[in-house]
């Protein structure tokens, strides 16, 4: 259902870009599409809240970044933290997927992945926002320059190039 809403937003943006004649409105339409896609990306990483046991909470008390540190990480005690090995598929785990070790404990990385949203789409969205910021700035500045030249924002009147 949220995906459908997201799709609806996308369609609204597309409709706006296709039908509206004002250049600024076209830009707005494109941006609406852009945000629809961003919303979609964010929703991909969504993780429903999970109830944790006390020990699990203890385990996760360190910051996520420290837990998810890269290849060469040593904590304060000098011990090497286990590597966060992410398999290629489905980064988000549900409780059924957890594998317990011989002590009946789940590994920290699994817990981490069970309780946090997928961070990758957020990084993607951040990048996408930066890019859309750049293209928005360029688009708006070209809109303004075009307005200076043609004296109108009506895209159907800006058609010197045809044929």
């Amino acid at each position, binding site marked *: 259902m949220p995906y459908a809403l997201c799709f609806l937003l996308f369609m609204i943006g597309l409709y706006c870009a296709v039908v509206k004649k004002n250049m600024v409105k076209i830009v707005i339409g494109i941006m609406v599409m852009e945000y629809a896609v961003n919303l979609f990306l964010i929703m991909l990483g969504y993780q429903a809240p999970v109830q944790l046991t006390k020990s699990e909470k203890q385990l996760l008390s360190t*910051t996520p*970044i*420290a837990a998810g540190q*890269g290849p*060469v*990480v040593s*904590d*304060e005690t000098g011990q090497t933290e286990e590597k966060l090995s992410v398999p290629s598929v489905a980064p988000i785990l549900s409780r059924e997927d957890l594998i317990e070790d011989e002590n009946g404990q789940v590994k920290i990385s699994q817990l981490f992945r069970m309780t946090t949203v997928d961070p990758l789409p957020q990084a993607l969205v*951040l990048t996408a926002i*930066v890019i859309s*910021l750049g293209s928005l*700035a360029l688009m*708006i*500045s070209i809109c*303004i*320059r075009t*307005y*200076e030249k043609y*004296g109108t924002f009506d895209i159907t009147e800006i058609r010197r190039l045809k044929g």
Partner: protein
Amino acid sequence: MKGMTVIVKTISSWVKVLIILFGIYIILFGHLTPGGGFAGGVILASSYVMLMLAFGREFVQKDLPLSLDSKLDCLGAVAFAMIAVLGYVFGKSFFDNFLSQFGRHLRLISSGTIPLSNIAIGLKVGASLFLVIFILSTFRRDSSDDKQE
């Protein structure tokens, strides 16, 4: 642009410092708390945007000339790329975190090159975002064509 009333001007000149400080904080602690170069950069830029609104473009121009701004912009980008290249020189590959052994966990000095990159990004984003807003605000109908055909 003449700017706004005295109240606005006074308050914004005080708040400016706070905002800048906040931006710098966000940038520097990017590797520890939510935030980072991009967010901090935006905050930095917003402080100058506020000044621009309050005092007018000319005032900001004096404070932060466009040429300097665009130079900062470039410098940020170059610095970021250079950090990547330094990874190649001192470490194993590009973007290699060659400083990662320094500092301790969860302290300000940690995470190797990531804070450095954050600073570079903050510089870049702050400068370019301000540049974008400033330039967009200077467009006017009938402004003479400064670029030739």
